Every structure is written in structure tokens, then in C-alpha cells.
């Protein structure tokens, strides 16, 4: 990809300080999408039709909450800055994968019934994390494998 810059979709926004509910709602939705907070009031996602659409809906939310929002399409001027942004986003999901790994480790000590429920929860969580993982970190593979191993452990009758 030398010399090839990725395209990004950006949401530039300003929300009134109060009430805080729209601000928190927006933060939550941006986090679920895996957006990088470039600056206060500027969030970025790799450009694709879905991400663009999701940010457009968030822009509407901001305007409805009495704020201002615009959607931008752009690329970083320097490859180093692009790598830095990607690394930051990878580090954020790496944290989420580490949490899954820790939960799997704890689940192996749980009684069978509870372990089954934990497995269902961790599968959902893993799916959520993968949906916002644009630059897969090394933690992804072990987290996936750990959940699969937990699944096999749940399938086996207790010895």
C-alpha cells in the first residue's frame, strides 16, 4: 500500500454543553462504531458506504439536539500520521480483545450452566468488537481462539 492513502469519513460536530444526554448518546454510538476521536468534536472512520451512512445519522442526531454537524470525506496528508491513527484504533480494540481473553480465562472456573451463559455473552461481545475492528491487532486471533476453546469446553460433558 506504499503511497496509497486510505479514505476516511469524518463527523465534525458541536453540541451544546447541556443537556449532557445527547453528548453521552453520541459518544456511545461513536464508540460502538469504532470511530477514532481525532479532536474534541471530530470523529473519523474508514470510508465505506455503511460508515458514511452511520455518521450521517449521527450528524442528524446532533442537529436535532440543537448542535451543528457536517460530514467530510478525506485522507491524511502523511503516511506516518495515517499509521499513527490506525495504530491508535487498533490499540482501542486490542483492549477489548484483552478483556474477552480475561473473561474466558475466568469462565473456565465457572460451573457448567453459568459457563454456557458466559459463552453466549462472550460470543456476542466478540462479534461486537470484530464489527469495529478495522485494523486487526495481534490480540484478535488469541481472543477468537479462546472463545472457540471455551465453546468446546462447554460442549464436553463434565468429567
Amino acid at each position, binding site marked *: 500500500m506504499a503511497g496509497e492513502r486510505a479514505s476516511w469519513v469524518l463527523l465534525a460536530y458541536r453540541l451544546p454543553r447541556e443537556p449532557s444526554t445527547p453528548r453521552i448518546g453520541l459518544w456511545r*454510538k461513536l464508540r*460502538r462504531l469504532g470511530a477514532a476521536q481525532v479532536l474534541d468534536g471530530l470523529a473519523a472512520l474508514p470510508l465505506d458506504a*455503511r460508515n458514511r*451512512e452511520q455518521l*450521517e*445519522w449521527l450528524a*442528524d*442526531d446532533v442537529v*436535532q439536539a440543537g448542535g451543528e454537524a457536517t460530514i467530510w470525506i478525506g485522507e491524511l496528508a502523511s503516511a506516518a500520521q495515517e499509521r499513527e491513527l490506525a495504530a491508535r484504533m487498533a490499540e482501542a480494540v486490542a483492549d477489548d480483545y484483552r478483556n474477552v481473553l480475561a473473561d474466558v480465562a475466568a469462565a473456565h472456573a465457572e460451573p457448567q450452566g453459568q459457563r454456557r451463559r458466559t459463552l453466549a455473552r462472550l460470543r456476542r461481545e466478540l462479534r461486537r468488537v470484530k464489527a469495529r475492528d478495522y485494523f486487526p491487532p495481534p490480540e484478535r486471533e488469541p481472543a477468537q481462539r479462546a472463545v472457540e476453546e471455551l465453546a468446546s469446553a462447554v460442549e464436553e460433558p463434565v468429567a
Partner: protein
Amino acid sequence: MRWATRCHCHVDRAACAWLIRRFVDEGAEFVFVDDPDEVPADATPFDMQGVELSHHDGDCSFEAFLRRYELHDPVLWDIAKIIHEADLADELYDAPEAPGLDVLLRGLSLTHEDDELLALSAPLFDGLYEFKRRALLLGREPS
């Protein structure tokens, strides 16, 4: 009547188009545009930024249609939960069908043009409606 929405339809727009043809306007004609500015003057826009029949207050466009046209059919509201989760995945509702439906529609959007996608997905929504209708009557899933 003519209806306009953004091209490259996914689950919410496909479901809205089905809803329009079945419950609002049998002879509906659909126009697909790239930008809200391209909506023809005689067309009603939906699932686009800044229009009434679109995302509002955390609802997806399908839910906006049900409210706007006062469609109180509980089966449609059951389907609305699935569309909401397939489109927004905000876990407001428990809709285990949602990720599957989302993938099916996204796949169709890769292999078919918008008008074909609407033609192919309509029978899917017909079936979903019938399934949910029977489930509601039986109090459990039909066989």
C-alpha cells in the same frame, strides 16, 4: 406515487420499500439517487438525511413509516424491532434474527442492482410477516 431513496439499498431501505408497496402505496415506483439534492420534485424521499420518513430520535426509517402512516399492526412492530437491530445494532431490542437478515441484505446489495434487490427481498419480507403473524397468534414459533 413516486418514492425516492439513496442508492445501494440495505436492510432498512429494502424493508421500507416492501412496507410501502404492501401497506401504503401498491403502485409505488422507486427512484434511487446519490444525493438528497437529486430527489425529483414529485417523489417522496425516505431514509435520507433531513427528511421526515427517516431516522429520528433513535428510530430507523421503517419505524418512522409505521408512525407516520399510523400502522398499528403488531406484526409490523415485531418486524420493526428486527429492522431496527439489523440497521442500528444498538441492542435496544432483543432481535436474534437481525444479524442474519442484515448479512443476507448486504450480500444481495453486492450482487444485485437496487431494483432487483427490492424485487428479491420483498418475498423474504412477505415470509417474515407471515411467520411473525402466526407466531403472534400461536404464542410460539410456527413450525
